[in-house]
């Protein structure tokens, strides 16, 4: 799902890193958002809605709408559209409001 050629843009990528999505090992680039890395791996579902348990994904992609909240390194309610990917990150689907531990 990555763009290979573009008439105007050159995409400068960071270091290739491994991260984990619901236990599955995936690759992405350091410095891109977690949401972009997930999309590049074909993953678009990010959390479950609180009451109806419906799948939710990215909507605004600029850190405003809260549609893409996930659990990142154990921290719930992380906006993955603005949180940058780092080596070894553990990213999980969020169900419910998240718990403070």
């Amino acid at each position, binding site marked *: 799902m990555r763009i*290979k050629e573009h008439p105007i843009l050159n995409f400068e*990528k960071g270091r290739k890193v491994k991260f984990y999505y619901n236990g599955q090992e995936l690759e992405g680039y350091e410095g891109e958002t977690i949401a*972009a890395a997930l*999309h590049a791996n074909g993953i678009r579902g990010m959390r479950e*809605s609180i009451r109806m348990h419906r799948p939710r994904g*990215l909507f605004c*992609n*600029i850190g405003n709408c809260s549609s893409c909240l996930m659990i990142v390194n154990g921290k719930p309610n992380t906006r993955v559209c603005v949180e940058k990917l780092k080596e070894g990150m553990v990213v999980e689907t969020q169900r419910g409001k998240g718990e403070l531990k």
Partner: protein
Amino acid sequence: MRQTEICIIGGGPAGLTAALKAAALGAEVTLVDRNDYLGGQLIKQTHRFFGSKEQRASERGISIAKELADAVESNKKINVLKKATALGYYKDGVLLVEQDEKIIKIKPKKLIVATGGAEKTLLFPNNDLPGIYGAGAVQTLVNVFGVKPGNKVLMVGAGNIGVIVSYQLLQAGVEVAAIIEAAPQIGSYWVHASKVVRAGVPIYTRHTIKRAWGDTEVEGATIVELDDNWQPIEGSEKDLDVDVICLSVGLSPLTELLWQAGCQMKYVPELGGHVPLRNENLETTVPGIYTAGDAAGIEEASAAMMEGALAGINAAHSLGYDAPDLNKQKEKILMELTGLRSGPVGEKIRRGLAKVTC
């Protein structure tokens, strides 16, 4: 408690221009932005701008963003706080900002709120499925990160954003099945619309989305034709095999801070929603709080930069900063703004602004 002369919330086209103008007059500025970069939504705009040379016609948003951001970051009069979120503005004139999970208190003499806008959604069954995005969201994914949202897109809305993003999706190698528009005519500039039509993308006017299909993600959409009263015509439904639905149905101003600060607000559909009342200096009903850009009413980046310039000049001038050609500078910007808002394209904006400019 940090003291500053002018605090600007938002580092997009309006905020950056405001900072540069205020600093040029001699004011000391603090610029707060919640992102880890400056430039706001300009950073994803790969198309060339219109208008006159003064309005940076034929430049791409991405290069304008870089130029403004570089100028701001290298300006010694401007202190930039990135990854910093403005949380509230209180009666004693203190602004609370969160950065790195710590609270910073700032007491500015003047505040410029240039917080921008947010994309609207649309009501239809399954509108919350993954694979349904704001058109600007997809623009960020594609143009900033080089990642595709899916393989085949239905674009809802044939205004400038819908049509421009459709073209940019084609440039990225993503198929656009159709652009639909509820109005009887295309809202975007013809030059953009003809580019996508030439590329083979059909634009269906008088059409809306009836529903999205899919279990865990978008797998398709049903569109329907509308009659003269904007009601769906039974039997005119068409199913489209798409895995992405982009909503380009307008933006609304991000005005939480202005509400919370007690600025008088008014619902003005022409400007995208609730916006602050303001005088000709772009000062709201709370003295010392100015506004500019999409937060003051949804327009385009060119208008945001001009409003930012005006707000920056006016805020600095109210602190006693002056320049021999200050009035000339202001007149020139006002003339450009009037030019930008002239003609049939600016009719809606003019009508909206007339309702909120006191």
